[in-house]
């Protein structure tokens, strides 16, 4: 080996932290994939584009309209969540019972429509807005970490805790789990299943909006930012595509692998590492890290 870079622990920590932070973004997008899939058995390939719309919405509210960062961010989440709800209500609900293939094609179609509409509305130049975390660093024992990386990681942990409490402790969270596990039985309990599924779409979209806001200090907002949805998809598959903690952990692993590949491997590997992870998981370990062998009843 003899590579001096291998033994620099401070650098390794920095790489891990920045990998984990982009991985958290993947994890949040992956969470959106998995929540919708568990509830409706649809794979929403427009999840990354919903994040992109969140980024532009936040830009409009914060940079253009001059709203306070926190207010603008909160409003963005509400707007995008409502958008997700309506998307299900008006479009996707009609596809329940159709072939998987139709759903995949539809969501791919929606993704390109969203890109085109965003291009028309906001243009094709990258834009950005200032956040309380932009260009700040924290020092932990002599290691310099960017505050943005830390804010992404902390934000993700807080969001995941809130989601966990929501699903485990609240009546609506329990009803969402129940409707995902046995739709008909949930109807028999008086759960308005269709509305509950639209709310799952709203939550997934809201999470994507939060991801966009968290990502803003490190990456510009542009029409193609949704393409990281494919890296997130790799994370979701690695996590077992169906497990909620698996989605987040899978996303983080993909992010860290990506950073490490960029540092230790020849140029080009960083960009393809997520796809390599996806291929490797599908071939070697298709059930993923947290996959359950128990299939849900349909």
């Amino acid at each position, binding site marked *: 080996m003899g590579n001096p870079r291998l033994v620099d622990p401070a650098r390794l920590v920095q790489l891990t932290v920045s990998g984990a932070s982009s991985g958290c973004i993947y994890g949040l997008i992956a969470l959106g994939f998995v929540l919708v899939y568990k509830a409706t058995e649809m794979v929403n390939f427009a999840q990354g584009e919903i994040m992109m719309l969140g980024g532009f919405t936040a830009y409009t509210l914060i940079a253009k309209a001059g709203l306070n960062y926190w207010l603008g961010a909160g409003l963005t989440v509400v707007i995008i969540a409502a958008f997700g709800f309506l998307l299900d209500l008006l479009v996707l609900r009609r596809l329940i019972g159709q072939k998987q293939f139709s759903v995949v094609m539809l969501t791919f179609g929606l993704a390109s429509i969203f890109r085109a509409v965003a291009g028309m509305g906001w243009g094709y130049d990258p834009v950005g807005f200032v956040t309380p975390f932009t260009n700040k660093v924290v020092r932990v024992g002599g290691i310099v970490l960017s505050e943005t990386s830390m804010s992404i990681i902390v934000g993700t942990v807080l969001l995941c805790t809130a989601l966990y409490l929501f699903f485990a402790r609240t009546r609506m969270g*329990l009803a969402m789990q129940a409707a995902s*596990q*046995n739709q008909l039985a949930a109807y*028999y*309990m*008086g759960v308005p299943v269709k509305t509950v599924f639209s709310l799952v779409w709203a939550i997934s979209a809201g999470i994507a909006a939060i991801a966009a806001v968290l990502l803003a200090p490190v990456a510009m907002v542009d029409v193609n930012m949704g393409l990281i949805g494919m890296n997130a998809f790799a994370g979701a598959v690695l996590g077992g595509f169906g497990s909620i903690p698996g989605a987040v952990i899978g996303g983080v692993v993909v992010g860290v692998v990506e950073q490490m590949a960029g540092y230790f491997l020849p140029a080009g590997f960083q960009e393809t590492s997520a796809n390599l992870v996806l291929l490797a998981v599908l071939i070697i370990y298709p059930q993923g890290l947290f996959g359950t062998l*128990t299939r849900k*009843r349909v």
Partner: protein
Amino acid sequence: MTADGVPILRVHNLETYYGPIQALHGISLEVPCGRIVTVLGANGAGKTTVLRTISGVITPERGQVQFAGRNIGKLSPDQVMRAGICHVPEGREVFPFLTVDENLRMGAYTRTDKDAIERDIQTCFDYFPILKTRATQRAGLLSGGEQQMLVISRALMGRPKLLLLDEPSLGLSPLLILQIFEIIRRINRDHGMSILLVEQNANIALQTADFGYVLEVGRVVISGDSAELLQREDIKEFYLGQRGTSARAAQRWKRKASWH
């Protein structure tokens, strides 16, 4: 409040289709308030379809479903439940990854009276003590009999005025069947709950119910008081598995055999 004995459920001339296939050919039946009514019939007779049509999973092509004086034929299943009908479907549809306790709480999804919900959970545990010891276990890991107890309890948590039970005896040991039917009787007695009970096990169903209907290929062919039905030769022959000797029974058998 519906007075005791007055029909709480009235199904009139129900015709239900699965696509082009007609499953119910004009079924009429009634459940008097506070009584147990059973629907018997062979496999494929349409028993499950009757319950599914009542609870709004399938919309009937023709006919009415009246519940407590209200027309519920066009409501969705969640609205039917809120109207006061809980359906315990065939095949123990638990929420497999939720715990027993969470399954019971899902049964009370439409309710907001917290204290009464806790009391009702205790009542379910009184009926089926094994559920208490499994309270924190995933429902998917319960035995078939335990799952049957759970889905009945879960429906009770909705405090229905009418309980629909689809073959609660299916796949259970004879002893457990006796226990479950004893509980069904107790539920009816303690809460005055009206029950529509679909069964293949005609013997125990008729011993439990006040009134019975027999379906054949989507039609009601016999109806009467349970005590009366238990005495009928053709019912003894074909549903109670006893050897009948009457000429009428033999004739029915011939007719039935010629269909296959």
